[in-house]
């Protein structure tokens, strides 16, 4: 047989291309893809990095244990720019990739609210960390929360301040975004139920450069205890320092940002002695301790809730897909909702029909810069 030059070239080209073609064909079904909307840029880029760390840590463990449905799991990350339009865009980019089976959304309630209508349209499970109670209570079947919602944080702050610290004159300071407003409202209602309605309910806008008017309002209210819902650690740091400078030293029980790693670093001594409710506290359980150790080993820094919830989300989601035995969204949904008594880094997960996994909070204290676990308060409803 005589080979013409043309035949030879064609054969050579086919031979060279074949492995690449085969590889790409193989790759299409080789992994299970999970999409993640996370701030890579914008004010929360820092927390976004930690969220990615937590997710990747869980991913490594899942893959090491054999992956999901016999395949390796792959994380597809899209920048949400820490803005509402940003996350809508990021989610639609991810949703366009039909082989992504489920998603991780934001820890910021405002952003989850912004993407929620698209989540219904896409009809695939989205794990979230936003704590505004309404997110899982407005008939959206595809949102699953991996942090306790603010109904619980408000009740725990009120319970701890009134019953443990014995304080009844409350000043509430909260951000005016979706998270802060809902949190402030939940705390106010919980306090009213305990017979200690707040003497001051003060909102502030995010990214304020100065909190003197807020501090002076707290001072003038005559409150003997402070409850806060701060969204950004920068704001919290400025507020904490000005609070101490202007001589306000009343006990302070705040939402998780009070005890977050970066707040502790930024505000320094201004936050010593404060209490915070924390969905993640390293000493609260064996699972939390194990996560803490793995995180420290991998990233040489202390973990907080920003990395703990994506860690739990990836772990539980992977287990749920395995249990469902399929990537069918409805089957995954049922499997997540069926998750009970699972010990995660954030606490014990008992999913309810709304998609809320956790139902209580830890109370922790900033003891000279070290976050110390105090107690866990859980609710049954």
């Amino acid at each position, binding site marked *: 047989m005589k080979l013409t030059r043309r035949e030879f070239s064609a054969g050579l080209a086919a031979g060279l291309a074949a492995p690449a073609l085969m590889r790409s064909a193989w790759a299409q079904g080789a992994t299970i893809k999970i999409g993640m909307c996370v701030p890579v*840029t*914008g*004010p929360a*880029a*820092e927390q*976004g*990095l930690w969220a990615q760390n937590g997710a990747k840590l869980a991913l490594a463990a899942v893959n090491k244990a054999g992956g999901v449905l016999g395949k390796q799991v792959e994380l597809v990350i899209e920048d949400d720019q820490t803005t509402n339009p940003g996350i809508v865009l990021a989610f639609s980019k991810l949703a366009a990739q039909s082989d992504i089976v489920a998603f991780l959304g934001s820890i910021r309630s405002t952003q989850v609210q912004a993407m929620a209508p698209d989540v219904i349209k896409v009809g695939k499970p989205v794990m979230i960390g936003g704590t505004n109670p309404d997110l899982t209570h407005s008939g959206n079947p595809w949102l699953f929360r991996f942090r306790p919602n603010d109904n619980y944080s408000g009740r725990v702050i009120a319970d701890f301040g009134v019953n443990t610290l014995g304080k009844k004159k409350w000043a509430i300071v909260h951000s*005016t975004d979706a998270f802060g407003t809902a949190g402030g409202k939940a705390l106010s209602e919980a306090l009213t139920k305990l017979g200690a309605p707040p003497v001051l309910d*003060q*909102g*502030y*806008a995010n*990214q*304020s*450069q*100065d909190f*003197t*008017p*807020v501090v*002076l*309002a707290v001072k*003038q209210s005559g409150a003997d205890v402070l409850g806060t819902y701060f969204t950004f*650690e*920068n704001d919290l*740091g*400025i507020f904490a320092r000005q609070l101490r*400078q*202007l*001589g306000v030293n009343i006990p302070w029980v705040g939402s998780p940002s009070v005890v977050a790693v*970066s707040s502790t*670093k*930024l505000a*320094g001594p201004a936050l010593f002695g404060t209490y915070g409710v924390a969905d993640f506290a390293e000493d609260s359980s064996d699972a939390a301790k194990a996560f803490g150790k793995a995180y420290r080993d991998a990233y040489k820094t202390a973990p907080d809730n920003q990395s703990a919830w994506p860690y739990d989300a990836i772990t539980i989601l992977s287990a749920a897909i395995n249990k469902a035995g399929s990537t069918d969204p409805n089957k995954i949904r049922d499997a997540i909702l069926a998750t009970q008594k699972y010990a995660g880094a954030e606490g014990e997960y008992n999913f309810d029909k709304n998609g809320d996994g956790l139902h209580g909070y830890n109370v922790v204290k900033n003891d000279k810069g070290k976050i110390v676990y105090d107690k866990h308060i859980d609710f049954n409803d």
Partner: protein
Amino acid sequence: MDLVLQLLFTGIGIGAVYALVALGFVLIFRATNVVNFAQGEFSMVAAYLMVVCVELGLPYWLSFVIALAGMALIGVIFNLGVYYPLRHRTYLPVIIATIGASILLANSVLAIYGPQPQVLQGWFDTPGIQLGPVYLDSQYLLIIGVTILLVLFNFWFFEKTLLGKKLQATSQDKEMASLLGISVSTMIMITFIYSAVLGGLAGILVAPVLFVSIQMGSTIALKAFAATIIGGFGDVAGAIVGGLALGVIETFGAAYISVPYKDGFAFLVLIAFLVFRPQGIFGERVAEKA
């Protein structure tokens, strides 16, 4: 009364920060007729330079000098890379180029240094002084002091020195200045260097109060821009007065009317000026000059 004094001090302090950044806006506007939207990022970059130097263990004063020298260099690069190639075009491409440069600067710092906000210690060990009922934050005292010094320096520099007069001549009429033997491009280069250093100075001064973060520049710059319009675009005294006025108005507005709408007051004043006195407080002097 105690409350009023405390608010007044804070208002002037935060206003002085706006004024410092506004000054940078004004100087570049006068020299080139464009608004430099990267002015806020100059502040941010300088604060990061300072943090890096301090972390390397250099003394505070040396870090300060290095950071400002670095800003001078950035001023040169900015002039050559952003303004100079577009100098014969209308103002619009230049403005868009400055916006592009501001995004580039912010994301470069993000890529190099990472997103974690940093703490920069203040110049003084004592955080502040309790003067009767009023607490004076030492960093704000420093900011106010530096602003006063800069106002005096600017007056002396632009009115009494030959270089200052050359810069003024350039900003008023480039053709005439160049006919008189003044090198226009050198003058514009000097203006960019000076503005970058001024913006950097503002960033370093404000960093111990607001922390060092990627977005610190843009939040301040927005207010500084408003201050520039309120004061009268193109007027040095206007920038200072506009900045201080804005700081005081928003602080009092927040305390006595509504905290969540604090930023609203600043921009309400801006809108009022745009409607009723678009030339700003010191607008007429500029008109005479032109």
